[in-house]
């Protein structure tokens, strides 16, 4: 059927001023009409361009971008890390004879026995005994019972333990010691302990296992370290100190030991009388955090100086001569942590825009631009599809309800009410946890999410459509349509609904922005997108604090702008469509 095109005042196309049938017969289909009017509307075109730009940005950009959306980027930064630690030694440290073994269980029992004042203790089925040699020196022995003695008229008769060797000379020495009331005695180069319980006396053979000292050994030069670690050396040194001697010898070498305050310094005297510093005993222990770090005596002294001066930091030259800063802190009394600036790998979080990252990186170290592109795919898809679902269901239900009125209207409206009384949040939580349990693929979750959002949102549209149709239903053009015998469905959807279009378009536009943001809130609460997938909404949500908002504009402004452009574009297109459909428009 021929329809007039545009303003009757303009001459028909093709031929100037001809008014014959040919010219009039040229017609355009309704769709073309709408399209032409739409295209003439500048704003609508702008809106279309904006939308197209968003789609291109998201779908094409995501392919073009060199980075993956969950790719984390690293950078190197300087962090003060623990390098060594110094503490005032309050515990006993053990030097163990190389041929013997002092298990940790025995050490623990030793502490218990020492604090309780009992000389004998046992661990792991073996017996031990400790003796005090000097103020902070204890000797630990393994003790084996070799004989039991019973007194008989002042003298003791001993019965040897099975398998033990108890010569007469030893027995005699034991008797003498018992008579003298001693606890231990020496005989033939070995040490023996005596224990009395009532009348019985037990003789035990002692074997030296370890020395426990509160002093810590440090060698001055690396070449002397093996010697300083030798048990025999330490024994000699410690006994000398405990005995108050000035010199002692070890391995054919001569050493002198002298106290300087709370430390004792051991010097080696070479055959021609030269004194060289050899070792130091002090109450301080310093150790590096990994075994390869060697804490020299000089470094230790530097730390102690800083501690005494109550400094927070000090500097010390590196092996290659350059001075290096160290930080000192005291997390617990008598413990000092030395930190050194080390270059270490860090996540490149919140990096400023640069050539490598045009919009910087987010708070997890991922490229912002790539995430915006991939996020755009999801946001746009979710937004448009949900709007379409909502519109479709809403128009159908609202249209049918509004048109038929009466019982149908009643039922459908009440159905909508029931729908609305379902509490949203619990339902979403249930869905979220069901999806978690079924371990649904993250992308499938998005589709399910869209369906759910659409189903929850159609009621508003239905009501608006119904309300409008209630009014329009009685208008003349509807009466005419009925009189013309047009089918009911055609009447509803081809005549009524297009007149509801303007309102629908407004609703749809507003919903679009809201849906994108609702999806973000749901993802924030864990019911939607799973990390590390992104959408525009979740990107904005990630910049939650005032600090992030004000210091890192690139974390949220781009995403916000993109959403705004999309919503604006959709809005302009909607306006354009509405005007294109309405022949009574001024323009």
């Amino acid at each position: 059927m021929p329809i007039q095109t545009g303003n009757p005042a303009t001459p028909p196309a093709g031929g100037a001023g001809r008014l014959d049938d040919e010219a009039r017969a040229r017609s355009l289909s309704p769709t073309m009409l709408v399209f032409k009017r739409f295209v003439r509307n500048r704003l609508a075109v702008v809106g279309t361009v904006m939308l197209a730009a968003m789609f291109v940005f998201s779908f094409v950009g995501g392919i073009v971008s060199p980075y993956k959306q969950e790719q984390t980027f690293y950078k190197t930064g300087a962090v003060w890390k623990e390098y060594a630690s110094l503490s005032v030694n309050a515990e006993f440290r053990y030097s163990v004879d190389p041929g013997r073994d002092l298990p940790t269980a025995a050490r623990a029992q030793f502490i218990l026995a020492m604090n309780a004042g009992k000389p004998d203790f046992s661990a792991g089925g073996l017996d031990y005994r400790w003796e005090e040699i000097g103020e902070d020196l204890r000797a630990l022995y393994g003790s084996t019972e070799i004989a039991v003695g019973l007194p008989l008229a002042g003298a003791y008769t001993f019965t040897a333990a099975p398998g033990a060797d108890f010569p007469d000379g030893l027995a005699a020495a034991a008797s003498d010691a018992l008579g003298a009331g001693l606890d231990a005695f020496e005989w033939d180069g070995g040490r023996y302990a005596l224990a009395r319980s009532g009348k019985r006396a037990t003789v035990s053979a002692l074997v030296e296992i370890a020395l426990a000292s509160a002093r810590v050994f440090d060698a001055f030069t690396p070449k002397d370290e093996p010697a300083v670690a030798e048990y025999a050396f330490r024994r000699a040194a410690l006994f000398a100190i405990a005995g108050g001697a000035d010199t002692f010898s070890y391995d054919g070498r001569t050493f002198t030991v002298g106290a300087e305050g709370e430390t004792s310094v051991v010097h080696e005297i070479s055959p021609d009388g030269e004194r060289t510093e050899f070792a130091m005993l002090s109450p301080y222990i310093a150790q590096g955090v990994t075994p390869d770090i060697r804490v020299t005596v000089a470094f230790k002294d530097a730390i102690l100086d800083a501690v005494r001066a109550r400094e927070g930091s000090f500097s010390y030259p590196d092996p290659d001569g350059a001075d290096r800063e160290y930080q000192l802190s005291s997390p617990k009394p008598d413990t000092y942590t030395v930190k050194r600036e080390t270059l270490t790998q860090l996540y490149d979080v919140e990096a400023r825009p640069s050539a490598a990252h045009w919009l910087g990186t987010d708070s997890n170290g991922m490229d912002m631009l790539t995430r915006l592109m991939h996020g755009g795919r999801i946001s746009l898809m979710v937004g448009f599809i949900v709007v379409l679902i909502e519109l479709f269901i809403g128009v159908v239900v609202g249209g049918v309800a509004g048109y038929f009125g009466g019982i149908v209207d009643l039922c459908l409206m009440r159905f909508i009410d029931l729908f609305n009384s379902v509490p949203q949040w619990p339902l979403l939580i249930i869905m979220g946890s069901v999806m978690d349990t079924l371990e649904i693929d993250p992308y499938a979750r998005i589709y399910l999410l869209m369906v759910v959002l659409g189903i929850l949102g159609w009621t508003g549209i239905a009501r608006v459509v119904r309300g409008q149709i209630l009014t329009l239903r009685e208008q003349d053009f509807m009466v005419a349509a009925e009189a013309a015998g047009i089918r009911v469905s055609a009447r509803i959807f081809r005549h009524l609904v297009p007149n509801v279009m303007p309102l629908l378009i407004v609703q749809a536009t507003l919903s679009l922005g809201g849906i994108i943001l609702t999806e973000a809130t749901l993802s924030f609460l864990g019911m939607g997108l799973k990390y590390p997938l992104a959408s525009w909404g979740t990107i904005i949500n990630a910049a939650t604090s005032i600090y992030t908002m004000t210091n890192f504009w690139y974390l949220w402004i781009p995403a916000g702008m993109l959403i705004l452009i999309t919503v604006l574009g959709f809005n302009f297109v909607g306006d354009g469509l509405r005007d294109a459909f309405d022949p009574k428009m001024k323009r």
Partner: protein
Amino acid sequence: MENRGGEEDLPVIADYFEETYAAYSGDAAAYWETEQADGTDVLETARVAFIAEQSPLDAGAAEGGVPNIAGIKKIDQYTIEVTTAGYEAPAIYSILGIPISPLRYYGDPALYDYDDNQFGHPYGDLSIVESKTSHPVGAGPYKFLSYENRTVYYEANEHFYKGEPLTKYLQFKETLNSEVAPGVMTATVDAGEMNGNKSNYALVAGYNSGGEVTGDVITTISVDNLGYGYIGLNAESVSVGGEPFSDASKYLRKALATVLAVYRDVAVDTYYGDAANIINYPISNTSWAAPRTTDEGYKLAFSVGVDGADLYTSDMKSEDKYAAAIEAARQYLIAAGYTFDEGTGLFTAAPEGAKLEYEIIIGGAGIGDHPSFGVLTDASAALATLGVTLKINDPADTNVMWNELDAGTQELWCAAWQSTIDPDMYQIYHSSNIVGLGGSDSNHYHIALPELDQLIIDARKSDDQAYRKAVYKQALDLIVDAAVEIPVYQRQNARLFSTQRIDIPTLTPDITTYYGWGADIETIVMSANK
């Protein structure tokens, strides 16, 4: 049976023992299988059960009741002596944790006569106390006035034993975590506590004109958090051949643990910088029993290979460390019985009882909001290069994680422990507390080592701190060797105070993890009132 002068014969412990013995036909093993065994002796167990069962049946006891408890004695106005049956280290804190309540409020001073066994209320009738449930008042420095408008209102308590607080009114306002620092800056609040991470410190430093965390606007005092974050491995579900503590199983867990442990640094350094410590033993650094770097035998967590050699040196670059860790893991897995294909560089088969894919649950609320999340992502990618899959499960509802922990079906998980003052490990590491065995159900690792159990009991019973420290070091070494826990980090809590409105010198001196800012709250004076 013993006749106590009453009507009927009452049972004594000997009877109870006879009964129990007969019930189990003298089978000690069966008895201990069924009854709760925790290392205490039979007599004590019997006595406790006896009292629990028989005391309600004792006619004489029910009537007038017991006049007083012999073990609780008042010494003077400020001292009470409590005698316990036996020594257990954590018991001290339980007893000392009982709050002190004022008599004149909760009781009736007229009814108080200590020597006559009258303690301020009629016997068996606590209605005076119950009536005050909705108006709790303690013996503290401030009195509760009301809770409205999301603010708790307090007023100074003039009867406080240290003297009436110098600042009359105190309010606690509900605040969002991220708004503590801005709140102090804008004078909405005067003091608060915030998480000690890098961006928070930067925020506070930005407010002070000197650019430091303590300045003219805000004063910051940082203390270690009482607790630490960790990654746990379930010894039963991550094992080889159904034997949780065989060498093969330990190798398997150590392989996973070594890779996870090496990636701790990146995450902690990025988000916390200097403000958090990476810890190496499953105990909080704030505890006195925590091993120090200077202790003998101190090692970084999971820094040793199959052959016992150290993996890392101090000058290694991060990439080198990762490579070393992956190589060590590969060797651990081969030692555990996994089949390695040299051609593809991947593991193709797992031994009996083990798998090539394990799941780790993390409570990130579905959005990866957890400091350890980065560790998991990196470790997962690294293990994938060996053909081993570490699947990360971040459920939206954290209860999913707790449900699995309760059922004992989890494989690996991320969580944090809150420490107590006493380092007693019984609740968490003793085998009787494995989930489902009727104990505390806190042993999520399912660790059951008899040696460890004995050490824990030994340490619990002693009051010698040096001894306990040595025993706990042994216990910690056992736990690390069993590879059931990877301690991750220990962060700080920052206490913020407004320099402008609070007279800072009047604050509690020496604020530490255990001695909070409120300990000397009665001395705080506001600047306006100086």
